[in-house]
């Protein structure tokens, strides 16, 4: 059995609690975090993660530039103004994915990128 997080409520447990009338109706609120997860945040066909990383210029590329070059990303937006964008390769292993992670500064310009290669790619 999967062990639940000690601090963070697994959604299943939370859903059960709400269904039991314990949680009531939580109104969506803008809190310290926003997550956007499109149906797909896979790199464009034929583009290697290395090529995708090369298409981005740290300190220069904007959100619009990256979206135009690489398409929709999974986005985690913090109230500090920083945003993390994540792209994966097609068929990536969820536990050991190949992924390109991009950090946008509050100014909206790329501050850092990180390429993580899953075991399937490292071999």
């Amino acid at each position: 059995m999967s062990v639940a997080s000690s601090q963070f409520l697994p959604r299943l447990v939370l859903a059960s609690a709400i269904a039991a009338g314990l949680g009531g109706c939580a109104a969506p609120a803008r809190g310290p975090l926003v997550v956007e997860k499109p149906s797909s945040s896979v790199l464009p066909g034929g583009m290697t993660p290395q090529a995708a990383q090369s298409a981005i210029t740290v300190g220069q590329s904007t959100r619009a530039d990256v979206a135009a070059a690489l398409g929709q990303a999974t986005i985690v937006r913090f109230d500090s103004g920083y945003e993390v964008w994540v792209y994966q390769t097609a068929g990536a292993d969820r536990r050991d994915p190949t992924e390109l992670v991009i950090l946008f500064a509050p100014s909206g310009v790329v501050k850092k990128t990180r390429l993580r290669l899953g075991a399937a790619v490292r071999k």
Partner: protein
Amino acid sequence: MAGNAIALSARAAFAAALVIACVTASAQDKKPAGGAAVLPPVTVTAPRDFVEKSYRKMIRGMDLFERLHAYAPNASLRFKLLPRKRDTNMKHIELEVLGPTVDIEVPIAPDDTFALMRNQQAWDEDAIVTPNRRSRSMTWRAEIRTPGLPPRTRRLGDLRLECRVGLEAGLVSNNDSLISKMIHVFTDDPERYCSNPDAHYLFFADKPLFGVTLVAGNRRETLPVSELYAAASEDPGLPYDLPFCDCEVLVDRTYFMPLGDRSWPDDTLVEFEYMDDP
């Protein structure tokens, strides 16, 4: 000072609850010869609403630290206070071990950590450990750090022990008491939980994170982003669940560790890259 006022209120509430309990017990004892009660039953709720932890549980956490010291043979144990709300004031916190008669002040270091003293009276009185802050405004963690590590690194064995001590000491906090009990079903055995490959104990880095990399000898592996930010990238509903998580305002600092993956030795270094690094 406001802080003192809150501390005094905490003491007064504790004393009031004790007095009420004694009066109620006394009233129940005073029955006329016929057996009818003299006073009707009264339900009183003490107006105490402060952050508090069980002294006994925290001592048990310290005991576990001693028993499992091999995970972190050169480290010492402290406890750390962390904010749970954006407006939590972490300055000038006054922390006390408080019981019906015992009242011991616990000094807090500038990094918001403290060491808990062993005191037989506090144990006997089942004291609480309480800062002068409202409930749900803070969370707690065990802080176990091997000295002399390179900057921006932690040691995996230290973190493995933090998980065990943190759970044993009852430091995990959630808003809803019933939900906490449900979670407790999973976490009342720290060893079982923290050695599980799927353990998701939330750790908090010193600053907002961009990356976390494990290094053991020539082996080097960066965590997927799903192991950061309380797995936010996997869960668009996380913002709605945050009020139930003690990571509520620390989500950009959170990370999971492969605690149960013994292919990573305890001496594995955990390297952090922060968002604001150049």
